């Protein structure tokens, strides 16, 4: 079993996720942006999509499918960037 396929890896990923959420929360507090549950939900959905993009590229590179990695990375990456801009605008709603 490889490290990146192991329970320890996902455990560490979980720690990183927690720290990310904590950091985002503190950052939003410093920016005086309220974060109700629906903003967190949108953020989590975006993180899943962005994570899917990274994992898609990695998986196809691992399968030696460079075409799929490049094309998928480009398409899903662009979608991630565009939606990130949109998400930031939504998150800023209610800024004091």
């Amino acid at each position, binding site marked *: *079993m490889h490290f990146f396929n*192991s*329970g*320890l890896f*996902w*455990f560490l990923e*979980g*720690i990183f996720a*927690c720290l990310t959420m*904590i950091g985002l*929360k*503190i950052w939003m*507090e410093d920016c005086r942006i309220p974060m109700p549950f629906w903003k967190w939900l949108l953020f989590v959905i975006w993180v899943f999509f962005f994570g899917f993009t990274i*994992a*898609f590229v990695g*998986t*196809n590179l691992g*399968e*030696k*499918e460079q*075409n*799929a990695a490049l*094309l*998928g990375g480009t398409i899903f990456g662009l979608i991630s960037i565009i939606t990130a801009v949109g998400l930031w605008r939504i998150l800023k709603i209610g800024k004091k």
Partner: protein
Amino acid sequence: MNRRQFLKATGAASAVVGSLGLGFYGYEAGKDPESYTGWETHEGAHQTFNRKRYASDHPHYIKVGPTNRPDARTEVIFYRRGDFMRNWKDDAGIGGLPEHLRVYYQQHPDVLEQDLYHLKEVFPKMREDYRKYRNKFILASAWSNAMGAVSPTPINQPPEESDFPRRSRFGEQTEPLKMKNPLKTSKLIKKIAHELGSTLVGIAKLNPDWVYLYPMRGRGFEPDKPLNIPEHWKFAIVVGTPMSWDPMYANPNFGTSNDAYSRSRIIAFRLASYIKQLGYPARPHTPGTSYDLMVPPVAIDAGLGEQGRHGVMITPELGCNIRPAVVTTNLPLVPDKPIDIGVQSFCNTCKICAENCPSGAIPFGDRVEVRGYLRYKIDTAKCHTFWNQNLGNMGCRICIAVCPYTRKANWLHKAALNISANDPTGISHSVLTGLQKRFYPGPNPQKYYSPSFGGENASYRKPPWWLRAEDFIEF
């Protein structure tokens, strides 16, 4: 709750979750069959798909007319063409052929045309191409021949002689042991099949329509006499293993069927021996040509998968990358149910195999009646002709390599499979087909041919490093 309290609570929760995670990680590490170094049978761990959820009361193929059993002498292309090539004389024409071939070609003149083309045009060009271009594929050939080098002694006796246990053979009971419960016996047999190395295993009640009416030569039956199905061929246990994945993706020139053929063959013979040691008759039906029955429909009945457009069975775990074998027996068993994972609907939309088939053997149209059943009909003559128009190890297998179901079992392709299997609308089938075509394209099918036939010896994907002869051998 203020920030400090939140952070403290988060920390405490993380500590609990993290500790639990370590515990589960340890448990999995202890249980993992992959850690049985040198004896990693996986213990059936790769037969992961929850088939119960997709079980159907009847297989997907539909009976639309009177059925009849296939004639191996004409329907099995190796036998037909072998007979044809041995007996064809230009001056005698069709009249000089054995009766069963004469009748067959009179009913199928297009097939005669194909078989003549194969004999007169393809073979001479194939020999020339082998001479000129073979070196590049020499390691692939060595791998293929090595995998086929170990083979059980073929069965060349009729069922009444070879299927039954004999006291003279070590361990074999002559009286059947009284098994407690067919369900428990089925579970035992599946466990043994997995322990013997089978990736997938299923059980079916044998449908007589799948047994050859006129059998293959060399299986111990009287030639040119109909096969009476023995009473003890009650159940069919289907085992199967995949071809090695990286060579498989480098078909037609670097792949082989021999790796999976050999593994499935050995498993089937061992399983038959095991069953005989319980005192029950058992007969293996194994690849490449040692069958008394057609294996794919038996495997479909056993719930392992569905037939795809290319005629090959598609399984949830391996796609169509599986080479099955069958053991027939009357050991009391409980048959599995066939499954419906949306393949019929997907294949209606997809057609990637038909678009990529160099010989045009795979239909773009709907299913047609074949011996009373509605199914996709492959032009086996065109298919087999292409086998000798490329430099690969006896075969093509491009339809297997390009099929969207034949992907490695990682999160990405498993997610696609689950979406497709659970989508009654078919919308995901169109989307997934489009993604497959954009993300995983292949060469123009004409390029797969060898140069004498206008091709470039292309393969679907580059071969793995260990099959690249030019990296290891001075030519």
